[in-house]
């Protein structure tokens, strides 16, 4: 059905296709195509059980444990903490009781929920996808409308396969030009957040557009959309194109045969129409984006790796100055210090932001033939069992272990440490994850966010490092 209406954005097309009903007060009941569930879902299932409600669409619900699993073992029984073990066990019990497909610890498809969805072909263009995790914005990389929800909302989706929402505003971020070699989706999103701020996209859905975005791989787009929430965005999305379709084709839950052709026809109509209007527009130049790292306790505290720790005295706004002083105190940094002179204790390559095969290849390319600096503990945590197998087939695990990295099993791990894998107080961690919040990687732990290549170079150098100038280390 072709509507002869005004030009519409990708977001508006998906929104209107999922509208079950709209109240006069503007609240809209949206239908959920795909609901991803992880091992933090126990309270949501408990609420359903208390009311004796069934799951409305178990066939649209897919689960995998990630937050509470250990990355040293695949045995649930070896999780020493009974509460955490219980979270993983309850996911298995709840999904079994409701007939929900679960990729458990004994399944190579298990992984971080935002890695599993794309890998299985569950994240599709035009879909409305939700999950009880703020990084659900990841799946917008396929041209889906995907956003994180709270536990009560998870219960609501389980019971009704729908969700009440007020239509958010739209923000288009256009980045044209060519990214410098080695500059990745991670550097792009950190540069965006530094520019628009951690609340820059609050109450907005972001569409990332422009030639630099179209030039990103699926992995790069997933990283980009993943951190939309760190700019305050409700969701982030990239219009589906040939890169998207090539990634999806043949995935287990992607349409097959004639259905694939029909889906392609539908998906090709999704991109934003010429002349469609966004509530806000931001334009950036790809050539200006450098390998980027964070220095503070908000993702908006990001600078090129060649920069220096900023001086609060230079900040005119008193609120921002106070924040900087607090952040530098927590981070143990002195204004004026070159970022490349900041030593680290740990390196974490993993998380729903950067644990995909392309990320591991980029890190391995830096690590190959080199050694992790003495005293630095460096981990590589693949995003899923399938990525682990793929990396091992390519010999990346040996590259990492020969360099002195630990090669671990799939899970969220040190991104937030819900499984107990944390850094010690005052330990400084170079991390490919998404949040450098106070205490995020453990009480008192200090986090610097960066890309996998920058993290690998940092592991080798023992300090924040620019992979472009990494000398031969013997």
């Amino acid at each position: 059905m072709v509507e002869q209406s005004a030009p519409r954005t990708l977001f508006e097309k998906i929104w209107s296709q999922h509208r079950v009903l709209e109240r006069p007060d503007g609240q809209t009941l949206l239908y959920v195509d795909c609901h991803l569930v992880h091992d933090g879902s126990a309270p949501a299932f408990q609420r359903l059980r208390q009311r004796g409600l069934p799951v409305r669409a178990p066939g649209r619900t897919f689960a995998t444990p990630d937050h509470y699993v250990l990355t040293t073992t695949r045995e649930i029984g070896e999780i020493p903490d009974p509460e955490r073990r219980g979270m993983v066990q309850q996911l298995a019990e709840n999904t079994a009781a409701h007939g929900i497909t679960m990729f458990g610890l004994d399944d190579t498809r298990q992984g971080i929920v935002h890695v599993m969805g794309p890998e299985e072909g569950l994240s599709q263009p035009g879909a409305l996808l939700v999950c009880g995790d703020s990084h659900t914005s990841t799946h917008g990389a396929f041209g889906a409308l995907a956003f994180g929800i709270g536990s009560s909302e998870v219960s609501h989706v389980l019971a009704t396969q729908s969700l009440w929402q007020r239509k958010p505003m739209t923000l288009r971020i256009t980045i044209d030009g060519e990214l410098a070699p080695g500059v990745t989706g991670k550097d792009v999103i950190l540069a965006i957040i530094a520019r628009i701020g951690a609340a820059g996209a609050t109450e907005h859905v972001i569409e990332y557009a422009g030639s630099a975005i179209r030039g990103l791989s699926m992995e790069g787009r997933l990283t980009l959309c993943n951190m939309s929430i760190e700019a305050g965005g409700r969701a982030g999305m990239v219009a589906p194109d040939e890169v998207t379709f090539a990634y999806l084709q043949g995935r287990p839950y992607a349409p097959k045969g004639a259905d694939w052709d029909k889906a392609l026809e539908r998906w090709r109509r999704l991109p934003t129409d010429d002349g469609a209007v966004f509530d806000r527009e931001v334009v950036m130049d790809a050539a200006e984006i450098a390998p980027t790292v964070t220095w503070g306790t908000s993702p908006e505290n990001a600078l090129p790796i060649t920069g220096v720790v900023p001086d609060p005295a230079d900040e005119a706004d008193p609120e921002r100055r106070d924040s900087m002083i607090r952040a530098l105190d927590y981070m143990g940094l002195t204004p004026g210090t070159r970022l490349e002179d900041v030593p680290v204790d740990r390196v974490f390559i993993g998380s729903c932001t950067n644990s995909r095969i392309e990320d591991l290849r980029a890190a391995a390319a830096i690590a190959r033939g080199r050694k992790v600096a003495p005293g630095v503990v460096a981990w590589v945590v693949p995003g899923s069992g399938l990525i682990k197998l793929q990396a091992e087939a390519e010999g990346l695990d040996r590259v990492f272990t020969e360099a002195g990295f630990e090669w671990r099993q799939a899970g969220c791990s040190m991104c937030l440490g819900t499984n107990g894998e944390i850094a010690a107080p005052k330990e400084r961690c170079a991390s490919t994850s998404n949040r450098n919040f106070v205490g995020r990687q453990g009480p008192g732990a200090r986090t610097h966010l960066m890309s996998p290549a920058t993290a690998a170079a940092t592991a080798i150098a023992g300090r924040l490092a620019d992979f472009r100038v990494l000398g031969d280390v013997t």
Partner: protein
Amino acid sequence: MTVSFTRIDAVALPIAQPNFDTDQIIPARFLSRDRDLGLADCLFRDLRFTTEGAERPEFVLNRPEFRPAEIVVGERNFACGSSRENAVWALFDYGFRAAIAPSFGDIFKNNCIKNGMLPVVLPAQTVASLLAQLQHTPGARVQIDLPTQTVVLPDGTRHGFEIDPFAKHCLLNGVDEIAFTLSQVDEITAFENRYGRENA
């Protein structure tokens, strides 16, 4: 939850930091704790207590005047970050019933409404003035009236606020959203039938 909210006249707690994230409200290591055990002692855990469990006297909530607080006042982007509803539960279990800020993390704001807690957005200047008043007069009270959508600050100034009409309705009446939606389940079934055909 079917907790309702109408009005409040209570001590307000100033959290004078922008981008105050939900990891600060409740650290990740408490997310596996059963809600039935109560989460009040996890609230602001690492700001409130040392690793040994002693109170940090410098943290606002540990000052005697602020202990009975039921309203939390934050700066720009309050409760951003993680979707953990446990952040609302921890605030609620301590006794908080409303939050005021110039802007909130979207998911936190939604989570508040599902739990009978009122998120109030006021202009940045008004919130800055409120924070200054609370710091100047610890234990000062703030009134919030949902039916008339007004806030009265300690200095007596009255300020209107906007709220989504559906959220207001749900809060005032303690609407059980799942039951409310299931009462319209025919619409969902009709959509599913229609949707299935369109995507065939």
